[in-house]
């Protein structure tokens, strides 16, 4: 499993030498020019020498001092609980790189890997990209162990399996595949592991690398894996029979398989009252269409179908466009690109400058441009509405995909009118129908004429009514709750 980078000129499989000096030489040659590797030799009273090899900053210095060095010097037993015998040189290297100090003794061909690692890490914070009003405020961190522990804390069952592997020739990034045995389809897990095992790459810096390397359709603007930094979202999905892929070094976990509607569901949908959630879901759906179509509809109607607008509305549009020198298509593109630029600038700029940019942006887009007669006021309204609506998608990534798709739509609208928009929509729907996420059709909820599946798509059914898990792949444990959970007079509640 563990594959350290091959040291030049030496076979890494060799076992350790009995002579400490030769071992040290060997380490020093492998870690040549690695200034952060520390070799600390310890004299054991009357019993020769020991050597500690570790990486500065990854080892628990205080622990080493107290639990290793001082007992050794007095020739007492080590008080380290986590210690593993390591026989080969290769394993030694892997442990050192992993942060575990290796203890070698003169005359022994087995080293000890000590679990005394400690490095600076970020604490658990509220997820910044997916905040919610109601619901847990914990987010994943960059440390895989912390992340898996967060999942384990929610799903306290031995059925929760977390399988680990390392990917990345140089980064040796730890990847964990989490799933609930019995709920997740075995073939799905095998497929995920197979796809992950296929990856040969220098490094994995973020789960986005993994996402692009294992998704089903690489040529698609739509994300086929859900990325989230919320443990509760991951656990919710695990309990529905999906699998999660966690990556060391990033707070974003991946969930597979998903459908298109997974991207439109917010964790809060399940925490607040189902009636409210249903209404909000529909609001979200309609604004999704807005963010895709509004500017293109405006352009199409204004350049091809003027008779479709109610008379008085057309008149006010006409009077506001009277001084605008550009065609509607150019105006729309101009404004939309400006908005995207502002958004991007707002994300990238340092926080101190951010507010300045938004003020300037609002002034430039909103007022000055209209006053100067370069763009019309309705266009500003359209762009603003589109901008807001695209951020209503709970998944930022999905929102961006849709937002980018509106540019081809604007072009289609500007050249073919409503016909073009219709063609665009047809192409889009065809594409969505052909997409798959680990074999699960992207629109599978709509494709299967199963009313039960709509319970979590068309509306959010109350928990006492969502008895079955969503149907994803093969066989699974069908029911997630017992019958008769609905509150009523027999349970002490009111009827009705």
């Amino acid at each position, binding site marked *: 499993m563990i594959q350290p980078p091959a040291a030049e000129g030496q076979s890494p499989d060799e076992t350790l030498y009995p002579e400490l000096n030769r071992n040290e030489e060997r380490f020093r040659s492998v870690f040549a020019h690695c200034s952060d590797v520390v070799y600390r030799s310890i004299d054991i009273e009357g019993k020769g020498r020991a050597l500690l090899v570790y990486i500065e900053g990854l080892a628990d210095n205080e622990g080493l001092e107290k639990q290793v060095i001082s007992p050794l010097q007095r020739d007492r037993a080590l008080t380290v609980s986590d210690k593993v015998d390591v026989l080969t040189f290769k394993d030694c290297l892997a442990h050192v790189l992993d942060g575990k100090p290796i203890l070698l003794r003169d005359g022994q061909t087995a080293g000890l890997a000590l679990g005394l690692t400690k490095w600076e890490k970020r604490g658990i914070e509220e997820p910044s990209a997916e905040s919610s009003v109601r619901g847990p405020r914990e987010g994943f961190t960059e440390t895989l162990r912390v992340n898996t522990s967060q999942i384990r804390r929610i799903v306290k069952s031995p059925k929760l399996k977390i399988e680990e592997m390392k990917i990345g020739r140089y980064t040796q990034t730890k990847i964990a595949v989490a799933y609930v045995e019995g709920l997740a389809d075995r073939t799905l897990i095998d497929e995920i592991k197979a796809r992950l095992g296929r990856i040969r790459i220098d490094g994995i810096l973020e789960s986005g690398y993994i996402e692009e390397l294992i998704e089903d359709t690489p*040529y698609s603007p739509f994300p086929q894996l859900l990325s989230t930094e919320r443990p509760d979202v991951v656990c919710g999905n695990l309990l529905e029979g999906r699998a999660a892929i966690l990556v060391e070094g990033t707070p974003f976990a991946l969930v597979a398989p998903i459908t298109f509607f997974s991207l439109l569901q917010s964790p809060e949908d399940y925490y607040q009252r189902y009636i409210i959630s249903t209404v909000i879901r529909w609001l979200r759906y309609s604004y999704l269409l807005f963010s895709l179509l509004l500017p293109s509809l405006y352009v199409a109607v204004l350049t*091809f179908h*003027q*008779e479709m607008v109610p008379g008085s509305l*057309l008149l006010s549009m006409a009077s506001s466009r009277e001084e605008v020198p550009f065609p509607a298509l150019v105006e729309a593109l101009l404004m939309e690109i400006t908005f995207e630029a502002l958004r991007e600038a707002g994300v990238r700029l340092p926080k101190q400058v951010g507010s300045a940019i938004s003020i300037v942006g609002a002034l430039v887009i909103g*007022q000055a441009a209209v*006053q100067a007669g370069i763009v019309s006021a309705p266009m500003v309204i359209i762009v603003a509405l589109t901008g807001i609506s695209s951020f209503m998608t709970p998944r930022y990534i999905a929102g961006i995909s849709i937002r980018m798709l509106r540019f081809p739509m604007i072009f289609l609208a500007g050249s073919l009118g409503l016909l073009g928009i219709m063609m665009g929509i047809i192409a889009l729907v065809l594409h969505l129908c052909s997409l798959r996420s680990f074999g699960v059709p992207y629109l599978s909820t709509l494709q299967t004429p199963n009313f039960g599946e709509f319970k979590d798509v068309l509306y959010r059914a109350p928990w006492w009514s969502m008895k079955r898990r969503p149907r994803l792949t093969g066989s699974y444990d069908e029911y997630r709750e017992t019958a008769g959970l609905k509150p009523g007079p027999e349970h002490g509640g009111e009827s009705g």
Partner: protein
Amino acid sequence: MFAIGKITAPIALLLLLSGCWDRVELNDLSLITAIAFDKPQQNNSVEVTAQIIIPKVKGGGDGGTGGGGGGQAKQTVTRTASGSDIADAISKLQMVIPRKIFWGQCKVFIFGEEIAREGIREHMDFLLRHPQPRERGYVFVSRGRGADVLELFPPIERSSSEVIRELAQLGIGLKVTLEQLSIRLKGESGAQALPLVHILPKSKSSKPFETIAYLSGTAVFKDGKMIGELSSRETRGVLWVRNEIDEYTVTYENDPAKGKVSIHPLHAKVKLVPRIEDGTWKMDIKVRTAGDLVQNGTPLNPMDPQVLKKMEEGMKKDIQARIRDALKLLQRDLNADILDFANAYHRKYPKIWAEAKDEWETKFPEIEATVDVEARINRPGMVNSPGGISQETGTEK
């Protein structure tokens, strides 16, 4: 990436190269709100007048007071051109309008009285054949020249055409859309009706042309030619029979001596039941209506069921009289079946109709029409006894 490029590049090129042939910017359109057809002074056969909206940049907000004018500024302009037919006239009209004529928002079509008497059939052909005029636009006939109606600057609505369109929509008078007119022109009865537009004399304080046109009466057509007109009261009778009555008030002398009663009906339903008995053609006009008492000029107390019954009786008689008056005029004087009795017979007696339809001209005046009205007063209003009359005298019959 190559695969995407292979597909998208040709599509993008196709879109760009095709050149958007029918793309028109809003700034390049002249929005016509109404169009009028008149008989020109010269030999040309038709004169077309278009009312065009002047799109103005609204001064509101931070634009400063430079916008000036405000509500008083003219919002429409009219342009006239004549030609041998409408298409010809329109092409000449385009010569005096800097922007492309756009019919898509034209919701009012006005025929001048003179041209209406000459016949509207050939002009209708253009309006129906051309893809742009709205079939749901309203058609009117104007007393005098249609162009004069469009020249007005109404104090309330944006344009004079908007005024008559709104008036038509209120349902006080007849309202006929282009589509309905075309159906009637092809219909069995061979007669058509269009609302008549008059120009309201301007009030003393108003500027010249600052007034509106209003609807009153009906122009009656036969085979596309205007042959006569109905007064406002007779139009009401026609509306009853055509089941188009909507917003109206029936005022009648309840008991000749005692005063007037006004009813504001809530709904009215009319059924035409044709019968042929022993060769005589009969038509039962069944009216069911109900309304509220809105003014009671009599000293009677409508809370008394007996009195209410009497009032209902009076209402019934009044409606009957209105319908009979209209029928009399249409059957005897004009011989124009604008009530579409023909269609009712056609539906019920298709075989007899096939033989008799050529004689409809002679059959229609002879139809024996019976008017059967069922009138009800639902609510006597907020006060019981008549206003200003004491309880005691009020109860006396």
